[in-house]
């Protein structure tokens, strides 16, 4: 072997055996080297074991990491770029995001209701409260704004009904606004506050002409209110005693809490 380049040696032609010897130069730590031998077993003991998925290398959601190619991962989240904000505020970061009290606002009008003309009681506006918006125990407040827009005499009322369809036939009276008798354009805001327990709503008289529920003088009514199905709120204008009367509902808002 003397005076032979390593490329001139006879090739072993098989894998390194545990008993094979390999010549090495071991550092003496002082800049010199000492010629020594190591066995094939010495060399193999220093190598990483063959990777076996789920044995000595973890998986990602039960999928192996072994193999070639790129592993698809989610891009780094950048607020307002690939993750939305809430009212312009980032939701990235640690800690809790506090949401105030579970308030639900399922309906706010964005148009003016249909004008109702003459001696009639007809729907001016409506909205559908989708099924399961409210639980069987909830509280909510409905505000609505009927408006008398034409007529020099007679009375206008803005009433609210609830029904399973967008129709007055078979609808249940939910609230009665006060009489509006002033000539010219008159608009009122009325409030119905309801406490629902086991799908039964407690509220003051539906037929009484009240501009709010604040009075303590009205007896309590128990009204079925089961939101496991959709409920239509119907805003109805009732013109009386003057065929020339015109009125319409100009706004509404429903706000509630599940308990």
């Amino acid at each position: 072997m003397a005076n032979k380049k390593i490329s001139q040696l006879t090739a072993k032609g098989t894998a390194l055996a545990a008993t094979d010897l390999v010549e090495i130069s071991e550092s003496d730590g002082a800049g010199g080297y000492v010629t020594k031998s190591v066995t094939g077993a010495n060399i193999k003991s220093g190598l990483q074991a063959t990777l076996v998925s789920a044995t000595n290398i973890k998986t990602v959601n039960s999928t192996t990491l072994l193999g070639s190619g790129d592993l698809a991962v989610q891009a780094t989240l950048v607020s307002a770029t690939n993750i939305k904000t809430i009212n312009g505020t980032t939701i990235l970061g640690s800690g809790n995001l506090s949401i105030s009290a579970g308030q639900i606002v399922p309906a706010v009008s964005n148009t003016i209701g249909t004008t109702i003309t003459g001696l009639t009681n007809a729907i001016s506006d409506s909205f559908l409260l989708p099924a399961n918006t409210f639980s069987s125990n909830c509280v909510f407040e409905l505000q609505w704004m009927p408006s008398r827009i034409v007529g020099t005499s007679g009375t206008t009322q803005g009433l609210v009904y609830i029904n399973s369809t967008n129709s007055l036939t078979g609808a249940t009276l939910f609230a009665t606004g006060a009489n509006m008798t002033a000539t010219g354009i008159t608009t009122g805001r009325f409030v119905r506050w309801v406490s629902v327990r086991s799908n039964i709503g407690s509220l003051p008289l539906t037929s009484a002409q009240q501009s709010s529920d604040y009075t303590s003088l009205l007896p309590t009514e128990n009204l079925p209110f089961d939101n496991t199905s959709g409920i239509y709120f119907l805003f109805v204008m009732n013109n009386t005693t003057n065929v020339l009367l015109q009125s319409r509902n100009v706004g509404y808002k429903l706000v509630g809490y599940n308990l």
Partner: protein
Amino acid sequence: MSNIKTSKGKLTFNKIDYVLQNFTNDSGESVSYALVSDSQVHIGTDKGIILFDLSCTINKETFTDINLFTAALY
């Protein structure tokens, strides 16, 4: 056309049973019904005040007068 079925102080509409009972009207009086228009009436029931109109039949009979319609409910 929806039908109202009547039966001794009760009526059935859209598969819902209603027990007829009085309610307090705008004047504070206890009444069993209140006419709303020439074609509509408020009927007091155990499930609240229900609006019915002449588009409904009563026991399959058609009405054109709201007073006769209301009388047929009781």
